[in-house]
């Protein structure tokens, strides 16, 4: 139960809480409509220099030799920065909370692991001169075998992408190569099921594409401090990350930000600040490093692409008896925040449903793709997409209304979740009821009366009590069980499912030519109008 400690700061608090339900003006709105809100790039400092980076044209390659001689003589160049100039040139974002090993350099030294990885930074009087000098840098690359697919990356003998993680998987608690959930016995659940549905879901990387690209301006301040104007979404996180990479106390850095031209998760990675501050340290002048639009779209971290396999066992009366997950997070070449996303994913499984037998494994996998990062519910959004597609297909398979199918399987207060925590404050049933009403979706009275509260409304479909262990349970599969591939037309149910007549459902989509990945549009193939 949530306890509000109203005795704390009692003399400073206004208990007249009545903001909810009425519009309140944003404090930055006047600045926005008068175009006077100050974004990082609206600072013009005296003697400001410009920083641009050389990015790798390869996805995986060893750097044999770096020739900077021509670039150093290029007009307007003030300083060229290499990996060796970065005080602590290896970091991982979540090391600030002791999660994960340092695995990513600010500037690549011996090897590049994704296309667009920065190798050398040039600080020059103008952006044009910085670009011209970057074009004069000569690099001798030795291309290495690449891996762009999470399943390929997990195969024995796959090229090692990030030497910090030689198995191409993030390491949890120093020993585990994935997150796992074990609850009940999925094999027994599958054996008891009337239908088995196995599906594969694939998400795409999504670029945040903020209208203001990532960037920062750093300038020497008095007392040996540096003031940093930045687009970051995570001001203090970014400050501490820079303090670590640059090996200075955090009180040497003064970050100014908060006015962000769109972030959506794409401005938490601290990609520009370490280099602009280092540029200011090495030149004694303000240094601006703004990511270009093309760089933002191609080389800044997107939402991670996740591949999710779900195998469900369902009874013909609509109960999910077992659910098995295998989820592969494409982290790209470095961890950034994907390790955390995989934890969130595992915490969210098996969705808001009570399922007596759950088995899950969630991997954070390294590939030669651009590192993935935070984006709007990352870790949960993709798995919800997969789960809810699966729920629609299961409902279709057993010939039930998809809303009612969800209600039958919804978790309720007092249910035991797969994480062995009792479900509290559940509200899926009420949400589905309201959604159905708003959508004018017909729902029978017994379902309208259901409630998430214990012992209220119609009883939930009983889940079977654990059965005694049997030998060779897979051989003793019930005679009527269907091993179903959804993408083929499902066989008609062997017996009437419900006492009440059901509106007709359209047949499943035709077979996909090669694999089980489905198109989004087919999700609602069974929707009734």
């Amino acid at each position, binding site marked *: 139960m949530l306890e509000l400690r109203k005795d704390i700061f009692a003399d400073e608090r206004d208990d007249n809480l009545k903001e909810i339900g009425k*519009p309140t*003006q*944003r404090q*930055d*709105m*006047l*600045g*926005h*409509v*008068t*175009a*006077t*809100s*100050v*974004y990082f*790039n*609206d600072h*013009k400092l005296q003697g400001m220099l410009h920083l641009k980076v050389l990015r790798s044209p390869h996805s995986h390659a060893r750097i044999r030799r770096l020739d900077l001689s021509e670039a150093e003589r290029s007009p307007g160049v003030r300083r060229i920065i290499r990996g060796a100039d970065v005080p602590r040139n290896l970091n991982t974002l979540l090391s600030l909370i002791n999660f994960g090993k340092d695995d990513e350099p600010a500037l690549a030294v011996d090897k590049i692991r994704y296309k667009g990885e920065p190798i050398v930074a040039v600080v020059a009087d103008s952006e044009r001169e910085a670009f011209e000098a970057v074009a004069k840098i000569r690099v001798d690359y030795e291309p290495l075998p690449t891996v762009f697919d999470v399943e390929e990356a997990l195969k024995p003998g796959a090229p090692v992408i990030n030497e910090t993680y030689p198995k191409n998987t993030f390491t949890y608690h120093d020993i585990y190569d994935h997150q796992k959930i074990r609850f009940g016995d999925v094999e027994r659940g599958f054996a008891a099921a009337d239908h088995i549905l196995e599906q594969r879901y694939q998400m795409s990387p999504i670029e*945040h*594409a*903020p*209208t*203001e*690209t990532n960037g920062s301006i750093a300038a020497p301040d008095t007392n040996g401090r540096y003031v940093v104007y930045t687009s970051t979404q995570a001001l203090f996180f970014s400050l501490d990350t820079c303090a670590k990479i640059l090996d200075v106390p955090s009180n040497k850095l003064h970050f100014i930000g908060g*006015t*962000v*031209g*769109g*972030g*959506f998760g794409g401005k938490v990675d601290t990609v520009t600040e370490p280099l602009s501050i280092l540029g200011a340290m090495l030149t004694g002048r303000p240094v601006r490093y703004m990511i*270009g*639009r093309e760089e933002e779209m191609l080389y800044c971290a997107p939402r991670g692409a996740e591949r999710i396999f779900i195998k469900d066992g369902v009874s013909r009366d609509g109960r999910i008896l077992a659910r098995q997950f295998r989820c592969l997070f494409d982290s790209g070449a470095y961890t950034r925040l994907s390790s955390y996303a995989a934890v969130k994913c595992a915490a969210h499984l098996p969705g808001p449903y009570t399922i007596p037998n759950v088995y899950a494994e969630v991997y954070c996998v390294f590939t030669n793709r651009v590192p993935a990062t935070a984006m709007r519910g990352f870790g949960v959004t993709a798995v919800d997409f997969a789960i809810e597609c699966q729920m629609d297909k299961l409902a279709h398979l057993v010939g039930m209304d998809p809303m009612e199918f969800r209600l039958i399987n919804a978790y309720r207060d007092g249910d035991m979740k797969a994480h062995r925590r009792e479900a509290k404050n559940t509200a899926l049933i009420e949400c589905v009821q309201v959604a159905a009403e708003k959508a004018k979706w017909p729902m029978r009275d017994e379902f309208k009366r259901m409630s998430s509260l214990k012992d209220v409304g119609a009883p939930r479909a009983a889940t079977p009590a654990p059965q005694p262990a049997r030998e060779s349970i897979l051989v003793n599969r019930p005679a009527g069980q269907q091993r179903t591939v959804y993408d083929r037309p499902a066989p008609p149910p062997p017996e009437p499912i419900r006492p009440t007549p059901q509106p007709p459902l359209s047949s499943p989509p035709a077979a996909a030519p090669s694999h089980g990945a489905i198109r989004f549009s087919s999700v609602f193939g069974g929707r009734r109008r």
Partner: protein
Amino acid sequence: MAKTPLQFRHNGRDVAMFVEGGMSLLSALRDEIGDHSPKFGCGQGGCGACTVLIDGEPVLSCITLAETVAGKSIETADGLKTGPELHPLQAAFMDNFAAQCGYCTPGMLMAAKALFDRNPDPSRVEVIDAISGNICRCTGYEAIINAILAASRRGARRA
């Protein structure tokens, strides 16, 4: 690099400067005049954050060469207010919560002003058409469209 003298009107005032060949109007406004109201979003004419008016017509200042506006009148979002008074569009954007991150707002305002200057009574479809070159990545389009309609004569009549 040789520089070219350039004069134009900026929000009703005459300005003069020397510009490098290839300098964009956006750069001239931001870096030479110090008017930071037009924003850099893409540099490719794709997002509309840099929208300004040249002789009343909305243009993308990031892909307009500065030299081409000699003798012309440039309006930016910085010139919308009259003294301390907000332009009706600015007031309507505030009242209708038509900004989130605010980065597209100056461009949206100028695209809307160009519409009002030639058609003070636009339909919803005409409003949508007028801002079709401006991206709001926060996807606040409904609020923006409603704000522009509220600021129009039609909206004023309703109020």
